[in-house]
């Protein structure tokens, strides 16, 4: 039996390797789809204003405030920050002119001593909190309330007002961390002075709150919103994995039409070996497809300015869900190959059914963009089970237990397909 299984697996592998068109479809198609879809979605979903806005900055402040504004702008992802023009720090005059000409959308000048001014302001405010008679106990040095830290922001004259608001609130957000840090430091100094306790440095004020993006309709409460890479890579991988239905069902039908399966029927014990060989080879193809697409998401898409796919600690869960999707796809291929009577029937029915399952399963249009009823319908598609499993891994670094229900659904789908094929064959045998 073992020998027969090996021989049959080898035969299927050779058949598939020699089917260049089939192979190209299985590996090139999902890659092309990921690129096209990611690019399309990136450009339609994101407003042009939001991405890659050129900003020129003159930072005359030497302290942490100026530094964190510049860093904030640089790491936000939708600004291109310049501090030098032709290797020189531009003058204020240059900056105003460049922004006026539209070469930069925003010009920012952080005035000298902004950090110090901010510190003074904070100390002053804190001092104000204490009752009048206690204030003289506090040695906070000479504090004046006169200077406010100063930042000038110039906009391209054509800028829309909500974009201006967005930039200003981004700047406020970048400075909030510094402010919080200074407040803590000042209190720490005071505590040290009053009761002689040494506090450690505080930090991480930028990430104190987790903003989870969700839609407000009740059915969508638990839907998570993937970025274009997190959606497209798993979506088209699953789609391509299910497309093995075409070569696999075609292969089964060719065997039946050409009398090969008749010959195999006369060889005792070969039936099971042949089916297992097929399942094995197409199962491995699915695994390879997923691995290939994972690499594309991790290393190739970022080269084209798209978000990078991060798998985090979910590699094992990724493997488990991939195995399940691949088995489900193989089972479906075997079922279609068993029931369809001609090549044409199987390739038409196979591809249309996969496209439909993909459409309702949120492969084309992500589920978070669907309406209530469609979301319920999407849960019927095995492609959706796989996709949700991948989302959980890529977006929530889910472990095995979190995706177990998807794995079980996919495996039952596989077993169901195999069982139906078996029943159908028995029924056919009885009828003939």
């Amino acid at each position, binding site marked *: 039996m073992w020998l027969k299984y090996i021989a049959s697996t080898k035969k299927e592998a*050779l*058949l598939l390797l020699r089917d260049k068109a089939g192979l190209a479809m299985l590996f090139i198609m999902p890659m092309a789809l990921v690129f096209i879809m990611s690019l399309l979605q990136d450009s339609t979903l994101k407003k042009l204003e939001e991405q890659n806005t050129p900003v020129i900055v003159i930072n005359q402040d030497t302290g942490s405030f100026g530094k964190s504004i510049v860093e904030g702008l640089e790491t936000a992802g939708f600004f291109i920050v310049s501090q030098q023009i032709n290797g020189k720090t531009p003058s204020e005059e240059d900056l105003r002119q460049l922004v006026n000409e539209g070469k930069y959308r925003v010009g920012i000048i952080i005035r000298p001593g902004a950090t110090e001014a901010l510190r003074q302001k904070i100390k002053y405010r804190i001092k104000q909190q204490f009752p009048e008679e206690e204030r003289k106990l506090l040695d906070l040095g000479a504090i004046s309330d006169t200077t406010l830290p100063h930042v000038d922001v110039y906009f391209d004259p054509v800028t829309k007002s909500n974009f201006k608001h967005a930039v200003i609130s981004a700047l406020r957000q970048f400075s909030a961390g510094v402010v919080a840090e200074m407040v803590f430091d000042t209190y720490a100094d005071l505590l040290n002075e009053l009761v002689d306790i040494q506090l450690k440095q505080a930090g991480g004020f930028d990430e104190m709150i987790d903003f989870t993006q969700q839609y407000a309709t009740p059915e969508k409460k638990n839907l998570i919103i993937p970025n274009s890479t997190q959606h497209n890579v798993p979506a088209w991988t699953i789609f391509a994995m299910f497309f093995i239905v075409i070569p696999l069902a075609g292969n089964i039908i060719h065997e039946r039409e050409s009398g090969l399966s008749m010959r195999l029927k006369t060889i005792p014990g070969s039936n099971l070996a042949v089916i297992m060989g097929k399942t094995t080879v197409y199962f491995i193809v699915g695994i390879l497809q997923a691995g290939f697409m994972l690499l594309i998401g991790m290393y190739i898409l970022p080269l084209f300015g798209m978000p990078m796919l991060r798998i985090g600690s979910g590699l094992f869960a990724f493997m488990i869900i991939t195995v399940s999707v691949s088995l489900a796809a193989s089972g479906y291929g075997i079922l279609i190959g068993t029931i369809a009577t001609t090549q044409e029937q199987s390739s038409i029915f196979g591809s249309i059914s996969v496209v439909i399952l993909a459409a309702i399963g949120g492969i084309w249009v992500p589920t978070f963009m669907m309406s209530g009823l469609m979301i319920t319908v999407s849960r019927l598609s095995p492609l959706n089970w796989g996709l949700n499993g991948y989302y959980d891994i890529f977006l929530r670094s889910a472990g095995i237990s979190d995706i177990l229900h998807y794995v079980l659904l996919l495996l039952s789908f596989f077993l169901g397909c195999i069982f139906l094929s078996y029943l159908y064959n028995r029924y056919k045998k009885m009828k003939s």
Partner: protein
Amino acid sequence: MEENVIIEINGLTKWYKNAAKPAVDHLNLAIRKGEIFGLLGPNGAGKTTTISILSTQISDSEGKVTVNGLDLKKDADQIKKIIGIVPQDIALYPTLTAKENLDFFGHMYGLHGKALDDKIRQCMQDFGLEDRMDKKIKTFSGGMKRRVNLIAGILHNPRILILDEPTVGIDVQSKIVILEYLKNMNKNNGITIIYTSHLMEEAEQFCSQIAIIDEGRLIEKGNPAKLIEKYESCNNLEDIFLLLTGKRLRD
């Protein structure tokens, strides 16, 4: 049951789904060990249907068949081991080479290693295909495909070899190679051969026993020479067929 009968067919009937009449109609036949048995008849006579039942590919509707004393329905797996089948259509993978095809079928029969390699090489040589081992089947001519199709059915040294029109569509040389090879197998190894054909002349020379069927029913059976003797007005099997059915054969 006669002592050396290897296949016995009693009242065999096959109705295909939705057919107006049976493809095989109460057929009775007994084939003895070591015989070269020809199942002859025109297109649609029921030849392929009969041997498909014999080789366990399809089930019958009625009747009883025993092969080597085993019941076809109950002991199908036992029977499969001792029969070899060469189908009418080329049942090979076109994109695999001859060697890969034969390796696969050999393995499916549980053969492996040097024994299988030697057997494949020997057969390919016997059929003049030794230099085609590593060529893909789809690049073969019709006659070459037929020869490989035959080899795939004999790798496991079956005791009964069933061939469905093995000489259709090939040139005289190939035909002679194939028939000579089968004759030798029959003579040297005592293999029982059952073969179908609509070529009466070929069958007349090749077979030790024949059965003529038409529309699923047995018309006549016996040794070809004896039959020609029996029907005095006839010079060959073709004439007998015409006499008994009022029909001409194709070609």
